[in-house]
């Protein structure tokens, strides 16, 4: 049986969210690893766009930031930032963007994310970068969220909503004046969570091989439905070989 690391399993899980031909807004780090893996295996026609305005970039080496010159290689166009903004806002008219990838320091049961600060906003215990492009992605497109699975990060209420998920439930986004797109999947080092179609609340969809449901709940700071959970398919030898080459 193939052996893999937590990071590799996460990258494979992220790659599985990208179908061939999809257009995705990608951030650096694991999302880019997952997207590169998808492009080199199951989704060769996936198209990657970046908040820096780099459109359909084809990096050969992993970039360190969304403005890295490595992304500009063989790109279709390099847009000024206001064009990226307009393209994103207009994308829903013709479903031009299928998915955006986001991360955060805290997540609540409806997929609302905090990447701004921990504690009181004016006197934060920990201060982070702030929104970056995350708020715009969460406003305009369906999202895949990458999180570290810890009790303090999976919490009932986030300290600051940087990126809105499903708000407070079924009509949450409508009440806030936001389009009906939102978080689809949360990928952590322990498993994959999705959101219930009716209640918009998070539930456990898959646990990674070697991880138990109990272990996941011990690391989750709110009630979460686990009745639909199944074990995730382990990564194949072929896909791991491609991934090791990329990383």
């Amino acid at each position, binding site marked *: 049986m193939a052996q893999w690391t937590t990071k590799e399993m996460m990258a494979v899980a992220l790659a599985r969210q990208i179908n061939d031909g999809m257009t995705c807004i990608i951030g*650096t780090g694991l999302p880019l690893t997952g997207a590169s893996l998808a492009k080199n295996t199951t989704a060769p026609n996936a198209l990657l766009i970046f*908040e*820096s*305005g*780099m459109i359909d970039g084809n990096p*050969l*080496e992993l*970039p*360190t*930031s*969304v*403005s*890295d*010159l*490595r992304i*500009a*290689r063989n790109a279709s166009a*390099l*847009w*000024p*930032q*206001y064009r*990226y*903004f307009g393209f*994103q*806002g207009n994308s829903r008219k013709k479903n031009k963007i299928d998915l955006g990838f986001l991360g955060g320091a805290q997540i609540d049961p409806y997929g609302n994310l905090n990447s*701004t*600060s921990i504690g009181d*906003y*004016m*006197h*934060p*215990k*920990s*201060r*982070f*970068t*702030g*929104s*970056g*492009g*995350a*708020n*715009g992605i969460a*406003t305009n497109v369906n999202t895949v969220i990458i999180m570290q699975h810890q009790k303090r990060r999976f919490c009932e209420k986030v300290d*600051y*909503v*940087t*990126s*809105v998920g499903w*708000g407070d439930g079924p009509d949450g*986004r409508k009440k*806030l*004046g*936001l*389009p009906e797109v939102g978080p689809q999947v949360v990928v952590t080092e322990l498993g994959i969570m999705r959101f219930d179609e009716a209640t918009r609340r998070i539930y456990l969809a898959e646990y990674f091989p070697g991880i138990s449901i109990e272990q996941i709940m011990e690391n989750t700071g709110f009630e979460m439905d686990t009745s639909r959970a199944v074990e995730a398919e382990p990564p194949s030898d072929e896909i791991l070989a491609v991934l090791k080459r990329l990383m």
Partner: protein
Amino acid sequence: MNSANKVMTMKEAISKYVHDGDCLAFGGFVTNKKPYAAVREIIRQGRKDLYIEGGPAGGDVDMLIGAGCVKVYLNSYIANSGFTQVCRRFRKAVEEGTILWEDYSLDVQPIMYHAAALGLPYVPVKNMLGSSMIEKWGISAEIREKHPKLASRKLIVTNNPFNPDEQVCLLPTPKIDTAIIHVQRACFDGTCRIDGNVFVDIDIAMGATNCIITCEELVSDEELRKEPWLNQLPNLVPDAVVHVPFGAHPSQCTNYYDYDGAFFVMYDNASRTDEAFKEYLDEWVYGLEDNDAYINKLGAARLSNLHVKPGFGYVPGLKRR
């Protein structure tokens, strides 16, 4: 006037167009084409009480905060991504409350700069609705009254007058005194040719009252006027042109050089403590008279190793940690 020779030294440009209490905006994006040579000169000249429009900020703004030049910082993102995940001098200043700050998103800030470039009084967006950026203000309306450089409010949520069922967020146009952007080629009159992404560069250049261009190469006007459709800024916009080779180091510059990973790692360590940061400023800013002294200190071998390789646009296999 606009065909005048605008070439001057960095010392002259900064003393002429950057004053205590000014609102500044910088071009580039995080670790790409940041006007670092200008930032170092601002610190050397000891400017203080600055208002900074950050946009996609990195070590450029972090250095200014760390050097005590900044009073108010308008943030949407600040990191040397891949090297420092959250800029450390910024983080310390916010956690200790030594600067005023405001949070927008990195979709909205470029649109605010675009509004400034178009001369619009404000701009309506759907972004940020429902997020904490709407109700949590780093700088209250009351405090804003004491800061004429700031808009009277962070934002206003209201109904779209054309479609009253729709909520919109109105954003004020920033009042930028001086924009500083780094370009690959410029000529004496301020005509600019930018290679690669322009990010927010043109918007801040047009939106600001004054504009300083720093450039890798100072070229003849014939060179840039042969194909004027490839120029992004006409001579009418810039006020100063400063020739500073490697002026964006340690960040990247399309067709010229890759980022200096080792330098970013050093900066990451230097920005961890007050003592180390002071030593860094002494060694790399105060201790060097100008950009020539800076690139001499870096050395020819180090800089030539950063030259991008044709066909790639970066340095393949560059040591980044």
